[in-house]
């Protein structure tokens, strides 16, 4: 890379040619204030807060858009620059309702911070003469137009990061307003409530309903973790205050998602209204009654100890950690020689022994084949990656039923029978990528194999940790008829009812390890309360085989314990020596997954 020499505030700096003044300054530790600029978004130079003086230029220059060339001499805080910034801030503060103390963002607002930095202590112009509406029609967050500075971050995030293009600008000049679709309310619009706009908004214009007015950022703790909703494995931050989860943010450093989350990852977990199980339960005289851990584990250990391995069945949800799956496999399959194990969700067909691609290949591709998978429904962030690629001119071919969520964006939509045609087209592309899921029948899968070596393949698994569960052999077929004792690791999975017990004989002894009360736990003889996503540490394996850490942000509710911890305690009760530190368990689990 060609390096050039520039001077900022008298300091000589060497930086790669063509990067912006802003980036060069940041690399050298020089702070240039910004407002409309966001590291994850392309710069537009709209707010003009980052203007700097560049020798030889007729006017002030926005640092966020100006590429550096050799010999540039830049002043970032000269009197002229400071005056221009104050002028901008004077106008921004008087443009709409920026009475900071009534805003939930007060203390965390980028506009307010700039106001303090440049001593904006009074209004130069008459302020807030026009009222704009507030749109609260969306479930999770609202749009307070009166606090909008029209920086366009939300619009860019919606268009370029999520490729949803819901947000745009309406009207012109000072009457401009962010709007959804052709001026629909946000609730009625094509908005997918991913909340990316909310996360990039510098002021209180986009306001999270749940965490509003619950504290400033400095009063909170941020814990980096991985989303447990689906198999994409988005990196995120859990924001807590006083042991309560306030909100979830996308982690801009996330390897897979790059900061983007979906509704299921960002909002739904905070709106979970299911009843938690807060203590172990044992069935006595036909009723489940609370017990302590010792009693409950004793009952399970005793039962399992007596049972014949052939009569024991294990069913696991994929919504548990690698460590739990490892211990489950170790305890039942390896130690107790239980062969009848199963997975609560279907797994995508295994095409190859080794991974043949990653989600990052999507954006490098020119043709994307989606076969028997609906990422819009099951792996939304993966669908964002696909739509982003389509925006850049990539061709999308969907081979699936009529109701596939990606069909509207597809260049070609084919039934499963025409897989051959899709494979032929993909074969002609330079960098095809194949995304396939559980909906692809065997014949189709074999047709796809023709592209081996040419295309990148990514299985879009349903569930969360399906890939790890498959690696531990949980997807090999489960025969319910022989089961007299069932260990059901339900976890926090939703949508699985009593049909999971179909075929299991009456009188079978059922142990359910679960976070929430459900018809299934009602059927159990022992219920072991499990910690949920925000309450446990460990690791998850995403659909590409990437192992990522999850971290505990708050204490478990009641007596609930982490998934792996429960199995570890059970093993201890059964005198099986499996106990180890979490780090040790993670390392062993990872070893097994690879």
């Amino acid at each position, binding site marked *: 890379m060609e390096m050039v020499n520039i001077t900022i505030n008298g300091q000589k700096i060497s930086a790669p040619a063509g990067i912006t003044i802003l980036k060069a300054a940041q690399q050298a530790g020089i702070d240039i204030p910004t407002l409309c600029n966001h590291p994850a978004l392309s710069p537009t130079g709209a707010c003009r807060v980052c203007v700097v003086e560049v020798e030889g230029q007729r*006017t002030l220059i926005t640092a966020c858009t*100006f590429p550096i060339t050799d010999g540039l001499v830049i002043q970032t805080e000269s009197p*002229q620059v400071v005056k221009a910034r104050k002028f901008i801030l004077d106008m*921004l503060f008087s443009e709409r309702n920026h009475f900071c103390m009534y805003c939930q963002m007060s203390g965390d607002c980028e506009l307010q911070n700039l106001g303090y930095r440049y001593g904006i202590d009074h209004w130069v112009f008459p302020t807030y003469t026009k009222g704009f509406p507030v749109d609260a029609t969306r479930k999770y967050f609202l749009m307070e137009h009166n606090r909008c500075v029209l920086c366009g971050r939300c619009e860019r995030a919606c268009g370029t990061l999520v490729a949803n293009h819901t947000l*745009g*600008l309406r009207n012109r*000049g*000072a009457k401009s307003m962010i709007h959804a679709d052709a001026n629909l309310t946000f609730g009625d619009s094509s908005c997918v409530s991913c909340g990316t706009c909310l996360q990039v908004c510098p002021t209180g214009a986009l306001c999270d309903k749940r965490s509003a007015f619950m504290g400033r950022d400095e009063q909170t703790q941020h814990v980096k973790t991985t989303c447990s909703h689906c198999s994409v494995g988005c990196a995120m931050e859990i924001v807590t205050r006083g042991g309560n989860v306030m909100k979830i943010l996308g982690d801009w450093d996330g390897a897979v998602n790059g900061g983007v989350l979906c509704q299921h990852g960002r909002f739904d977990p905070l709106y979970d209204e299911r009843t938690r199980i807060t203590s172990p339960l044992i069935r006595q005289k036909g009723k489940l009654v609370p017990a302590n851990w010792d009693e409950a584990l004793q009952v399970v250990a005793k039962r399992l100890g007596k049972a014949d391995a052939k009569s024991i069945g294990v069913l696991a949800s994929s919504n548990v950690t690698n460590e739990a799956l490892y211990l489950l496999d170790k305890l039942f399959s390896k130690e107790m020689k239980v062969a009848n194990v199963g997975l609560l969700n279907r797994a995508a067909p295994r095409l190859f022994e080794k991974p043949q691609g990653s989600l990052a290949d999507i954006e490098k591709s020119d043709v994307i084949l989606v076969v028997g998978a609906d990422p819009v429904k099951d792996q939304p962030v993966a669908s964002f990656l696909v739509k982003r690629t389509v925006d850049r001119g990539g061709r999308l071919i969907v081979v699936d039923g009529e109701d596939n969520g990606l069909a509207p964006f597809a260049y070609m939509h084919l039934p499963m029978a025409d897989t051959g045609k899709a494979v032929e087209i993909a074969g002609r592309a330079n960098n095809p990528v194949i995304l396939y899921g559980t909906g692809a029948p065997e014949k189709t899968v074999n047709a796809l194999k023709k592209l081996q070596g040419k295309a990148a393949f990514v299985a879009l698994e349903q569930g969360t940790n399906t890939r790890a569960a498959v690696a531990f052999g949980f997807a090999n077929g489960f025969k319910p008829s022989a089961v007299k004792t069932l260990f059901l690791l339900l976890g926090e999975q939703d949508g699985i009812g009593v049909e999971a017990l179909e075929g299991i004989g009456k009188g079978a002894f059922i142990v359910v390890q679960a976070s929430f009360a459900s018809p299934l736990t009602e059927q159990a003889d022992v219920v072991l309360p499990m910690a949920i996503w925000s309450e446990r540490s460990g690791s998850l394996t995403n659909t590409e085989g990437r192992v990522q850490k999850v971290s505990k942000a708050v204490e478990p509710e009641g007596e609930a314990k982490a998934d792996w911890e429960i199995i570890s305690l059970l093993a201890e009760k059964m005198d099986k020596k499996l106990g180890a530190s979490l780090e040790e368990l993670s390392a062993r689990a990872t070893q097994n997954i690879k």
Partner: protein
Amino acid sequence: MSTIKTLEDLNKAAKRGLESIIPSKTKIMVGMSTSGLASGAQEVYDALAAEIKKRKLDVVLCKTSAMGMDCIEPLVEVIQPNRPRLAYSRMTAKKVPEVINQVAKGVVDGFKPTYRMDEEDYLCLNEKKPYFKGPLPNDVKDIPTISNVDFYKKQVKIATRNCGMINFESIDEYVAKGGYFSLYKALTQMKPEQIIDEIIASGLRGRGGGGFPAGVKWQTCRRAHGDIKYVLCNGDEGDPGAYMDRSVMEGDPHSIIEGMIIGAFAIGATDGFIYVRNEYPLAVANLQRALDQARAYGFLGNNIFNSGFNFDIKIGKGAGAFVCGESTALMTSLEGKAGEPRAKYIHTVEYGLWNRPSNLNNVETWANVPAIISRGAKWFSSIGCKNNSGTKVFSLVGKVNNIGLVEVPMGIPLKDIIYEIGGGIPGGKKFKAVQTGGPSGGCIPKSLEDISVDFDALWEAGSMMGSGGMIVMDETTCMVDIARYFIDFLEFESCGKCVPCREGVMRMNEILHDICGGKGRPGDIELLESMSKGIVDGALCALGSTAPNPVLSTLKYFRDEYTAHVRDKKCPAGVCKALIRFSVSDEKCTGCGVCLKKCPTECISGEKKKTHVIDQTECIKCGVCKESCKFDAIIVE
């Protein structure tokens, strides 16, 4: 129509065209561009057609566009064998029978033509063709020739060479005027570099306002990396009172197309786009027809003139946002997005439309190109003044006698345009200032009326050439009010992307409204100045950074008017209603009662032959009394 691939084919088309320009029988032309239609040309055209049919005359009736002098439209021109071309102005349907009478007789008597033309200039061919041979017929001797009409005397027509001269529906007539011969020359006899050198040598500067040397721009674009390049034509004329580009697009669309093809060949472009505002329906229609004709003749498409060069042009219609005339906003709009400017620290000749090298020139610039190629750089640079070669088209409007489109050599003194071409100020009033360069231009005061009209001199004077609007103001114009008017326009047209323009212009407008409304505060003028500086320094695009110009230039030359408004609460020009007071002069009032009858609020009272009185509480300051008073007895102060 068969395709034209050789010079022979082209000559055949030219012959056809010439027969249609000067036919062997009588030809009547009606100026049917927007200006003509607005003054009733369609009615005149229909009446002519009916009259010709009624009398069973063997006459060709056709349409042409405006030649420039819009104040005398509708214009009907008659070409008869061996007679000069005659122009009947301010035509109405009622006058049609009389004109047809003269045509039938072949003699002028009674209703007189305004001017005559003895010969027609074929600029690109460098020749003049007479309309008649032999002596001048007696009946037309006392009709002035066009070169003796004040309005046309000092004009030199290059970009508008064919406007009003040919039927804009006929490609053959354009070819007959030397059209597409330049293209033939460029494609078959010149190398792209040669063409660029020729344009550089001609000194042609972009007529869109910036005045950047066109040839240099082409060269940069040619050298830019990329297989796909674009040439673009900016027809998004949005300045109030400006219609130069519209007239060329309506009257001579082929000159733009030919210029673009030559430019594309020189640059190595594969596709062209003409961006026109959809409020110009006639321009869009005429351009579309012209493109279809050019395609049918093979001037657009593959292997043009067997040169192996492929090129085509599409029209992009704009929704009429002022900001879309700015290069990057125009390109964003062409891409199908909302027309907002982009930060362009990398020039659009390198990263333009769809991030590909794009060369944007305006209508007038493109229209000049064929003339330069055919007549040569030396000829072009001999017209005009230093560093400003060629001509510039202006739309001369406002408080001036002759309103219309004028094309003058660069460097002509401003006063020549106003007093000679424009015929001075109506009503014997005094010339005060002229606004050039559109809303983001500035005002040039009477004291600078000797200024040379060129890019550099206007810029130095605090105004700019802009695309060529020229609004003349007389002593009854309030300069603060004018600044307010333009800032009002700019506030409305600000796209809202960057803060200085979106908010700054709005705030400036509020302050100007206050000043004009009698609510000016001490310090307002200084605040306007410091805000202007902030906007100039901080705005994203050129339209934003020039937005304070109307205020800056009026402050520069008419600061006393601002002071009068703010400090003395007076409007010296008597325009700002909140600051003026109507009263009746005791000496001059004859008590005739006219004002009393005309007053819409009935606030004037008084007996016959006694001085009338205006009730100040009821007066709405409409000025009707002043207009109706024959004795100049209404005092405005």
